[in-house]
């Protein structure tokens, strides 16, 4: 069984009630604008007190209404985060705008 390279779950509104249903687990997430353009790819690491829920609550507080999100529970949150960033860069030629402000050291990936 192969792992999906891209995160392609349906978008959900970045709203308090949606976020409250998230698990407190480790993982990765994407935040997009209302049209579905990815603004940021993030990770919920072991320092986030309630994992994905804490991280998305912080995103909602900082961004306000009108955005969307999707998550993936993943114990390998760091390597998956790097992978999603590299795949986005390969697909779009650049990082999502909010990752590009402070880019982590990334490699080159040319996915099929």
């Amino acid at each position: 069984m192969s792992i999906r390279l891209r995160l392609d779950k349906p978008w959900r509104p970045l709203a308090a009630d949606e976020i409250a249903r998230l698990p407190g687990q480790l993982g990765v997430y994407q935040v997009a604008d209302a049209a579905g353009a990815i603004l940021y790819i993030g990770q919920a690491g072991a320092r986030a007190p309630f994992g994905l829920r804490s991280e998305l609550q912080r995103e909602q507080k900082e961004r306000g209404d009108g955005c969307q999100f999707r998550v993936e529970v993943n114990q390998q949150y760091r390597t998956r985060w790097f992978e999603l960033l590299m795949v986005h860069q390969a697909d779009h030629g650049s990082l999502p705008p909010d990752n590009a402000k402070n880019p982590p050291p990334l490699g080159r990936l040319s996915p099929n």
Partner: protein
Amino acid sequence: MDFEPSEEQQMLIDQVRRFVREEIIPLEAQLDPDASELDPADHARLVEKTKAMGLFGIDIPKEYGGPDIDIVTRVLLAIEMAQHRAGLYVPCYGTFGGAGLAQIFEANEDQKERYLYPTLRGEKKAFFGLTEPSGGSDPARAIQTKAERRENGWVLNGAKLYISNADRAQYGIVFARTDASKGRAGITCFIIDSDTPGFHVRRVVHTLRSSHYATELEFKDCWVSDHQVLGEVNKGFAVANDRLTRQRIPYAAGCIGVAIAAHEMAIEWAKMRTTFGEKLANRQAVQWMLVDNEIDIRTARHFTLEAAEKARRGLPFKIEASIAKLTASEGGGRVVDRSMQIHGGMGMTKDLPLERWYREMRIRRVGEGPSEVQRMVIAREILGSNLR
């Protein structure tokens, strides 16, 4: 053989131990538990410190500008460098320099100018491309990547798997079959620039080592000139074998370092923790676990230093390197496992480094030649070369 450190070795050990405790561990405490990189500014600052200590480029031979440190001392220092959360795979976050398996000291002068010297100066990074989807333990038979002669050069087609750093490196050394009829005598080692057309890093491979990924590579009509052959055509297996044998000694040392750190944590916890009105340290079940830890560590340390001492003297050390790798990776795994057991629930959490060591130590029984291959090497040695 006397493995007690000399006065000079002890001074270096103390120096590295202080560096780990005073510089690395405080910074690490602020990072994600699975992090494998320091902030670039911190990294640069610590590299200056290791240079000031005279220990930067610790694996680099003296004739190439490295510090004049023999392999026994190197092992003693590697044991110290591994004693922190990320220490098994990124000892001291790479602040002591080095190029690992991809150091190409057998390169010709032109290749040294283009690859080796920039790598030793820290300007280029390299990867080591041996393992393939068809297997890694038996490279002589498993290598299916082909290199065919064409237009004053070679065209590579095939795939590599579980390759670290290939997406970030400027070049790599890649093993390909150049003569299908000759088994291990039909493999050649090539230096491949990462921007060569036809070279692709296709995907990230996620493993237990969630701090750092491996990659899968594809070579699709990837043409390289004759100047990119490392060593001689059809003699690449010796290059791989030499790397893997030499690497087993420091690889074992890293396992010992982590085992010592886990064992020290377990001792401290056992003396402190009270259950049912008694310190854990007073319970025989816990005492025996700690004794078994001590035996595993001492055994691995003895065999690893024995292998290093033989290598230092220029004696054959293949069997000793296999015994060292085997005892350190298997014993180290047991030590971390027992230390987690002594810590109870806390041992399972990411609050402590034990869970990361547990996952990463498991890989060590497979990486750089699995335990079964080490046993096979030892069996061949003691039973004779006719063993099939």
